[in-house]
């Protein structure tokens, strides 16, 4: 007994002494910076930085592998403290907050069964994906709330998580733990460049809006008297709400679920109401703007698309300069659309709002005469966005101007080419010619090019080999003629130096359409593009050869948009109109493509490739929807049908006198008609309590 005590005690003492000695003998110097950084970090071990815990991140920061601002939980104060330890400047970082994506709690949504099990979403998820009919509905068991290391989440009365943005640090723990992927991190910048995907809760109106305005949300805000909030919601996707309020064809109203009961909600008049509210208050409601990042971007073309691009670039922190050939900005909005439909003071107000965001405008500067994209890149612009869009003002301003006026030599628009041929002009195409195929122009054009002296003509077609028109199928004969056909291929980028096109990148289209194709590079002298208007192009400096003199900059273009699965919009020259992101048939379409161009620019400067969108909602064939609504009372629409404005005359539709718009009580009444739809949920009459936006 005593022996046992003595032996165990002795053993303990001996081992203790050994360890104490060893810790002296084997002492390893640890960088005190690591300890200081670890001290500064919050110690929540949330993993938001991408490292297993705070100490791992501290070591990584000191080793230079992680940024001082990598701690999302700590925010700017912690970043500044770490930066002080490390002796470096801290870069600005936009705050991200958790954003729950579901708006109808378990009480209100349609259920498949009643769940009475373990109080955890991950457990509930195992039973057929949860109790809700909606596959992307919040299960409301609060797994995210319990997971939040900062106590920023709580469960609202409607069983949906509520984020306290004062406490939320954007660590992303909730995003990682939610089995339904409903709660996601979001920031103002992210929402600008985002596109809706199939597995997101969207209302029919929201999906049919070309610009993707969160319509249920802004109407909800109007309903609650938050007009400025509504305006900010709209401006996340559409910088010209008042112009749209006047001339938008409002496809959203056709999609409105109220069509199943009575008349659609007057969505566009409601948008115009908040925009009118801003204009009559004589100010511009300024949305969130990211910190300046010192990147100068030139936007060529001051129409709706160029205005949108420069507006969102400014909001993302870039410094855009807008180049316009005409004396005033506005493009089609100013020079084509009649004043009866769109009063000019409305246009001026909206353009002023865009300039106020930090956009510099240079009017009466003409591409091809005063500058070219190549010269702008040499002039310290980091990127050049070409949005010459719907009207080609170069021709209108200077009818005497000869040539094609392309952004660089080697790009030919089919229309210009045929016009010049018609006038009997001699055109030097060079030896290698590539034709971007559209259905009507193929072999004939290729033969014309051969007659004009081209050695080899390549027709690049998006169609599968099996879908090619018959005259392009016999490759052997064509090859003997010096004509090559590349099916299932798209042009992914252009490359050149100064004002000359040199090479193009070709990418094969994956037959299943869910992977990146193989890229190859082709040296070309001329690229013939099958449209009448210049495509949207984004030029950036090619930095592969930094020793080259800065005067002769090499440039390449970015891919403007990419989606999966079908890949119809991949490549530089993408649908809907061959070669263009937008067909300029409505201002909202130009706004959408302007915003997508921002996405291309922003992803280029933050990552390398345009991130593909897997299940873009506009392209998806199947999206969950409802075909009938129940328990909804019919309510009268506040805005009379457009034909009743000026009696029953058809001309009311063609030249409607500017309609004075909804007044405030009418707008509030109209906003209450909105069903605040989600994917399959909507506001039912018996159950009007506890809705959130």
């Amino acid at each position: 007994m005593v022996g046992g005590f003595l032996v165990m005690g002795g053993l303990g003492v001996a081992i203790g002494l050994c360890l104490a000695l060893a810790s002296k003998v084997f002492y390893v110097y640890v960088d005190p910076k690591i300890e200081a950084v670890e001290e500064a970090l919050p110690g929540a071990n949330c993993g938001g930085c991408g490292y297993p815990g705070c100490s791992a991140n501290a070591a990584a920061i000191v080793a230079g592998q992680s940024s001082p601002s990598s701690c999302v939980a700590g925010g700017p104060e912690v970043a500044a403290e770490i930066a002080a330890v490390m002796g470096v400047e801290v870069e600005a970082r936009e705050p991200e907050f958790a954003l729950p994506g579901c708006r109808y709690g378990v009480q209100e949504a349609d259920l498949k069964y009643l769940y009475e099990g373990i109080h955890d979403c991950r457990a509930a998820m195992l039973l057929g994906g949860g109790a809700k009919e909606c596959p992307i509905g919040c299960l409301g068991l609060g797994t995210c709330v319990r997971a939040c290391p900062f106590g920023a989440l709580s469960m609202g009365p409607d069983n949906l998580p509520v984020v306290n943005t004062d406490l939320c640090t954007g660590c992303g723990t909730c995003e990682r733990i939610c089995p339904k992927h409903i709660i996601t991190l979001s920031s103002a910048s992210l929402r600008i460049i985002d596109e809706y995907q199939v597995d997101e809760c969207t209302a029919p109106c929201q999906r049919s809006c070309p610009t993707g305005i969160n319509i249920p949300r802004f109407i909800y805000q109007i309903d609650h008297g938050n007009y400025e909030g509504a305006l900010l919601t709209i401006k996340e996707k559409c910088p010209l709400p008042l112009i749209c309020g006047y001339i938008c064809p409002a496809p959203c109203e056709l999609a409105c679920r109220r069509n199943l009961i009575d008349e659609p909600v007057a969505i566009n008049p409601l948008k115009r109401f908040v925009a009118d509210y801003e204009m009559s208050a004589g100010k511009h409601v300024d949305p969130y703007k990211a910190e300046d990042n010192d990147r100068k971007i030139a936007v060529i073309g001051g129409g709706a698309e160029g205005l949108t691009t420069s507006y969102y670039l400014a909001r993302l922190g870039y410094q855009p300069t807008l180049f316009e050939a005409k004396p005033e900005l506005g493009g089609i909005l100013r020079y084509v659309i009649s004043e009866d439909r769109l009063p000019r003071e409305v246009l001026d107000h909206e353009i002023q709002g865009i300039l106020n965001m930090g956009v510099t405008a240079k009017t009466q500067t003409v591409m091809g005469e005063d500058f070219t994209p190549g010269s702008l890149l040499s002039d310290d612009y980091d990127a050049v966005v070409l949005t010459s869009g719907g009207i080609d003002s170069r021709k209108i301003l200077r009818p005497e101007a000869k040539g094609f006026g392309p952004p660089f030599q080697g790009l030919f628009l089919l229309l210009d080419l045929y016009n010049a041929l018609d006038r009997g002009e001699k055109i030097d195409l060079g030896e290698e010619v590539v034709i971007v195929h559209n259905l009507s122009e193929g072999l004939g054009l290729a033969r014309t090019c051969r007659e004009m002296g081209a050695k080899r003509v390549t027709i690049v077609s998006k169609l599968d080999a099996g879908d090619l028109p018959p005259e392009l199928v016999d490759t052997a004969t064509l090859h003997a003629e010096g004509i090559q056909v590349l099916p299932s291929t798209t042009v992914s980028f252009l490359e050149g130096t100064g004002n000359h096109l040199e090479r193009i990148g070709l990418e094969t289209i994956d037959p299943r359409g869910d992977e990146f194709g193989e890229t190859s590079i082709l040296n070309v002298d001329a690229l013939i593009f099958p449209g009448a208007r210049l495509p949207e192009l984004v030029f950036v400096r090619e930095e592969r050869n930094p020793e080259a003199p800065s005067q002769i900059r090499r440039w390449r273009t970015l891919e403007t948009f990419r989606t999966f699965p079908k890949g119809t919009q991949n490549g530089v020259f993408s649908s809907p109109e061959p070669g263009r992101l937008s067909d300029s048939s409505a201002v909202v379409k130009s706004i959408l493509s302007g915003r997508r161009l921002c996405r291309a620019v922003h992803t280029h400067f933050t990552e390398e490739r345009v991130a593909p969108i897997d299940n873009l909602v506009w392209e998806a064939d199947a999206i969950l929807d409802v075909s009938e609504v129940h328990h909804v009372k019919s309510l009268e629409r506040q805005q009379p049908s457009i034909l009743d404005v000026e009696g029953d005359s058809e001309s009311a539709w063609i030249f409607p006198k500017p309609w004075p718009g909804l007044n405030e009580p009418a707008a509030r009444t109209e906003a209450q008609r909105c069903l605040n739809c989600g994917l399959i949920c909507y506001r039912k009459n018996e159950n009007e309590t506890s809705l959130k936006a």
Partner: protein
Amino acid sequence: MGDYILLIVSCIFVNNILLMQYLGNCPFLGVSKRMETATGMAMAVIFVLVMAGAITWIVNTLLLRPFGLEYLRTLAFILVIASLVQLVEMFLRKSIPALYAGLGIFLPLITTNCAVMGVCLINIKEEYGFVQALIASFSYAVGFGLALILFAGVRERILLARVPKPLQDTSIGLVTAGMISLAFFAFKGMV
């Protein structure tokens, strides 16, 4: 010599510590998701087990048995193994930083590993001599590593397979472990 070979085969295959004796199942399931971590763990176990086998044999023979204190064996072994791992960790960190970086995070995990403890107790129970105890510890550790790496390989393949939802992750891991264990039953009766 033949005895030693028999001992090695018996420890690695027939009495495999993981699959036949069911000791050390936490790391077996915990670190077998990736081949890289499984290999690291296997190496760390071999390293620690050989040292622990030697030290505990010495403690048992020179300290516990002479004083008739075998009833304190478990307690003493825990103490010795835990501090041994601490000591080894400090030593490696100072002297062989590359090995420390490789084994680093696995060493503290082994402190409370029942496989290590189990092998030390088996050594005493079987009344091995010092050399036999060393060889047995090494072979058991190799058997541990073998089973772990085999299992990690299978689990990496399972990642690519379509597993029914309720069976995913640990569930299918346990099923697989059971099957590998059954396969090892084929060695029964060999030695």
